[in-house]
């Protein structure tokens, strides 16, 4: 009841206040032009297919590299010390520089080496830059998850005779991954948006298409169209995760504290 009233109050204020702004008419014409939207929207959707493709290629590779790095950093064998160092350096370096900079550096740098087609495509190397950067973010999420599994779980698994690797695979990782699904989805939503950064080195995906249409129609409406398309993907993504988590929680846990 209180929630409804306060929501209503905020909504009414916004609806009344915004059109009172001095330049609302101009903003409305430039950003919310129905005609321009209708004309550019299909092209934006077409361009968005490339975003989706880049995203879908990247995710499995990112998860794989991230898991490998996280498990390596968490290994305890003295023999793996050099690998642990390597993993730390990789994460520190990739994570310490903005994604955009890596896209420029790798996306322009590697094709500059004079590789043959198709290995000289900025699209390919821009995506590689995205994957390598995001893998470090996600590896840190996995690592936090692994470390959150209580030591006693390992003790129980080892006492049953499971090897280190088996303990990791059957006991630690399943719990770790479940726990980090919310932050993981957060990174995936970020990735879905950052895919658009690859456009800055050439490929025509949605953000670049919107830029082209903006100039053509002298209107910012294509950007709003692009924003709508992004939201149409990212919001259901987040809601689905919440729903999956809730279902899992209900399946495995006891009575809920209200």
């Amino acid at each position, binding site marked *: 009841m209180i929630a409804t009233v306060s929501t209503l109050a905020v909504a009414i204020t916004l609806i009344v206040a915004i059109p009172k702004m001095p330049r609302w008419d101009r903003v409305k014409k430039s950003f919310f032009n129905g005609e321009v939207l209708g004309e550019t929207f299909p092209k934006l959707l077409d361009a968005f297919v490339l975003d989706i493709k880049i995203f879908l290629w990247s995710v499995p590779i990112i998860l794989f590299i991230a898991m490998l790095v996280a498990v390596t950093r968490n290994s305890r064998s003295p023999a793996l010390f050099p690998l642990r160092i390597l993993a730390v350096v990789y994460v520190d370096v990739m994570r310490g520089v903005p994604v955009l900079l890596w896209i420029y550096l790798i996306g322009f740098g590697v094709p500059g080496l004079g590789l043959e087609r198709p290995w000289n495509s900025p699209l390919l190397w821009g995506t590689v830059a995205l994957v390598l950067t995001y893998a470090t973010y996600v590896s840190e999420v996995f690592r936090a998850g692994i470390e959150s599994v209580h030591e*006693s779980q390992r003790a129980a698994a080892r006492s*049953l005779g499971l090897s280190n690797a088996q303990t990791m695979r059957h006991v630690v990782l399943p719990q770790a991954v479940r726990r980090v699904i919310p932050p993981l989805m957060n990174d995936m939503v970020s990735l879905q948006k950052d895919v658009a950064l690859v456009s800055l080195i050439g490929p025509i995906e949605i953000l670049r298409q919107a830029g082209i249409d903006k100039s053509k129609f002298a209107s910012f409406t294509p950007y709003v169209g692009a924003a709508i398309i992004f939201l149409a993907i990212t919001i259901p993504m987040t809601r689905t995760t919440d729903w999956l988590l809730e279902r899992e929680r209900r399946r495995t846990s006891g009575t809920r504290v209200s």
Partner: protein
Amino acid sequence: MQKVVKSFGANTVLNALDLDIAKGEIVSLIGPSGSGKSTLLRCINLLEPIDDGEIWFGGIDISVPGYDPNPVRRRIGMVFQSYNLFPHMSVMENICLAPVRVLGRKANDTKAQALALLEQFGLADKAKSYPDQLSGGQQQRVAIVRALTIEPEVLLLDEITSALDPELVGEVLDAVRNLRNTGMTVVLATHEMSFAREISDTVCMLDGGVIIEKGSPESIFTNATNPRTRQFLSRVNSR
């Protein structure tokens, strides 16, 4: 075990401790908190590397650094004070994990065996439940079943009744009594003096990382010679 030393930093928890355990013997470790009971059990299972001394098991010194702990752990079951069930697995999955993954048993055979054990422990209807849906007592009984399915020669029980309600302690007692008939060697750390007195062949009183007195339950509980043991028992009994 001979002259076993275990320290955590400057804190020496086991201080040249000697202990012989015969096959089929049921040994209780009693003593105040921090006396080294749990650490001793963890060292036997090689969960903690020891700093000095030797642990012999079946004619082999298993405490040598670099000795593969997994074959040893397969022959030693352990049950923890806090159950340590795997929360993401059902009761059945918890129980079948080690037999299938470690011993390479067929899943179906293991399931049948697990069901029989669950029945014996009054848990037949809980096979599909998850640990968080069970009471503490039920969880601990599942943990015991889980330790038994690797068919260990030695069972280590680390204060397993500390978290159980009184009604269930009796049930666990019965279970351990049954184990005695199977010739299982059991080492248990406990604060339940009546439990220790009833179940053990030998009782060891630990204090300051050494066994200060060892003997039959009768001699320890009615006729302790060490003043520290008498003091400890009178405090415990006056509760």
